[in-house]
């Protein structure tokens, strides 16, 4: 898996816990030291020492995740397919819930979705290496910047077109 942030590729500091056995294994240095725990497993294993990462399906309810928001510093949302947009809405809702840690989109996303993912509150993507080979990090960084304007207020950094128009009007009135 390859983690890509707006600044470029980054070493993954988390290792995915897939079974209760995994959870017992000592944290190696190789694949990242913090556990990334699936929501479903959280009740079954000894809760790791905070802060750890939480891995959620894109169908998870906010109410199920909310109790853990204080003890995790990363939430990875699963994207079963790039065309499944549920993760975007879940990210938006998690941010609204007050989560300020790292939000990660995990799955076979395409570079063309990077800007949208960031606008919905994600900080990074974690894509399979096969995808990263086809769409290297450089493409992600380029596609991120293909559009310099957006209409929707409340999404992404920078002012929306509507806000920019407002600002221009205020400027003109001065």
């Amino acid at each position: 898996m390859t983690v890509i942030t707006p600044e470029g590729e980054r070493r993954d500091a988390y290792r995915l816990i897939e079974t209760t056995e995994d959870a017992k294994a000592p944290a190696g240095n190789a694949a990242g030291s913090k556990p990334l725990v699936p929501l479903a497993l959280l009740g079954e294993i000894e809760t790791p020492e905070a802060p750890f990462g939480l891995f959620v399906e894109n169908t998870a309810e906010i109410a199920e995740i909310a109790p853990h928001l204080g003890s995790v510093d990363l939430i990875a949302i699963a994207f079963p397919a790039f065309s499944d947009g549920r993760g975007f809405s879940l990210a938006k809702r998690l941010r609204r819930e007050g989560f300020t840690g790292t939000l990660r989109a995990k799955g076979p996303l395409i570079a063309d979705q990077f800007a949208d993912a960031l606008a919905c509150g994600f900080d990074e993507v974690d894509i399979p290496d096969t995808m990263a080979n086809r769409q290297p990090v450089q493409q992600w960084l380029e596609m991120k910047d293909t559009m310099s304007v957006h209409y929707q207020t409340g999404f992404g950094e920078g002012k929306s077109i509507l806000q920019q128009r407002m600002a221009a009007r205020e400027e003109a009135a001065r």
Partner: protein
Amino acid sequence: MYRYDEFDERFVRERVAQFGEQVKRRLDGSLTEDEFKPLRLKNGLYLQLHAYMLRVAIPYGTLSGRQLRQLAKIARDYDKGYGHFTTRQNIQFNWPKLKDVPAILDLLADVEMHAIQTSGNCIRNTTADQFSGVAADEVEDPRPTAELLRQWSSQHPEFVWLPRKFKIAVTGAEHDRAAIRVHDIGLRMRRNEAGEPGYEISVGGGLGRTPMIGKVIREFLPKDELLAYVEAIMRVYNAEGRRDNKFKARVKILVHETGTEEFTARVEEEYAKLDGPTVNAPLEEVERIAAYFAPPAYEDLPAESVTLGEARKADAGLDRFVEQNGFAHKQPGYIALTISLKPIGGVPGDMSADQMEAFADIAERYSLGELRVTHSQNLVLPYVKKDDLPALYAELKTHDLATANAGLVTDIIACPGLDYCALATAKSIPIAQEIAKTFADDARQKAIGELPIKISGCINACGHHHVGAIGILGLEKGGRENYQITVGGDATEHASLGERLGPGIDAEDVPGAIEALVETYLSEREGSESFIETVRRTGADPFKASFAGFIETRAAQEAAE
């Protein structure tokens, strides 16, 4: 008309460049075909039966003469010399080459047009009443709302990977000409008791294989809260709409399976949580957009035109044209005109490049440079002076654009069907042509009166057959094309779905069956009832009986042969 400012311009240009990059990345293998397909669709590019098809957005059906001239150029240079207007107020080019598409998108951008989100699982072109701003029965002009939604829905970061396509329509008149109840979201502009402007909001209408009439989930939403409320609906749909079966993925299924009450509660819950003021457009922005749709500088004219009155007496053709295709205008001395793209034997909705150019000139000379596209695949000249009508009529005639059949039995909606569409199970255009020929006689058409016939070439229902007073659905049965007939469908404020009359019939029997139904109507009708009004009163039974009779007679004839 709305005009792009620097931001709209930059957005569309960057989007064209972005698509150019995506094509390149498809060619160099960065994107697989599966990954590229939705990106191509979101730029309006389909792969059809014989070739690519490019669907160009005509936001709420409004076009300038300049834009139509550009569409003519595209039709001539990159297609076979014509374009096809669709049931969602868009235009399609059926024969562009993939390599030419970026150039076409540039030409469109030159005249403030695009093909963004005319396809794919995203929010599609917002449609509106074709008589917006001029209809005498209008409460409020829906175009500023439609334009606001066009901007807000363009490349919305959260809502471009929806379970399925999503269509929004707006009307501001008492009589619904935008078919809002068969859209995913239907917005009806209204006022509350206090006289404040707002919307009635319905969700979950749609046709296709599971036709449904939209359910009202909010009786009144204050006007300035629109974007936040739509965002709440979209978020609930994006999170909860089914993705396991594309035939069950539209919001109508979610509303149906969840129940209207529960769905409404979820939307309201989401709406209560989101921060509305950060989402909604500021009042200044709403006013900025609305200013583009302010009434034009009308001349002060008497309500009735002496010139027109005399010309109508002298020319029966003109008289009939005005009677049938004229539409009551807000402004005294003016009239709106439907220009039928349904000449007898023609392809419904097709227009040649020559006609487009001629019509662009006509719009500039006689209608303040503006025209509209209707969801019944016709055009409208919204601002015609009654005094000008005789001269205008003469010009329309020379370009074969003066067919006086707006709303009549030969004004048929037909999807592309087997002639173009990869999904089709039967022809639809040739069926429309045969029916039109059968009823070609002017006096007969007039005697029958208003009768919307709608034809789809497969169960996807792009021809809206469910809401045709007579609906025709082309299927395939045992290797033959087979047509199911319904009556009683209605897309207006009395929205209802048609009822099937009996077993499917062969293509060559369709015109005869329609004649039998028309005869039933003529013998059943009371007073000045239209076809649909009669069906509404009598129910489908008399029509079922005459349909069964028709089938029996045909079977007997065939046995005798």
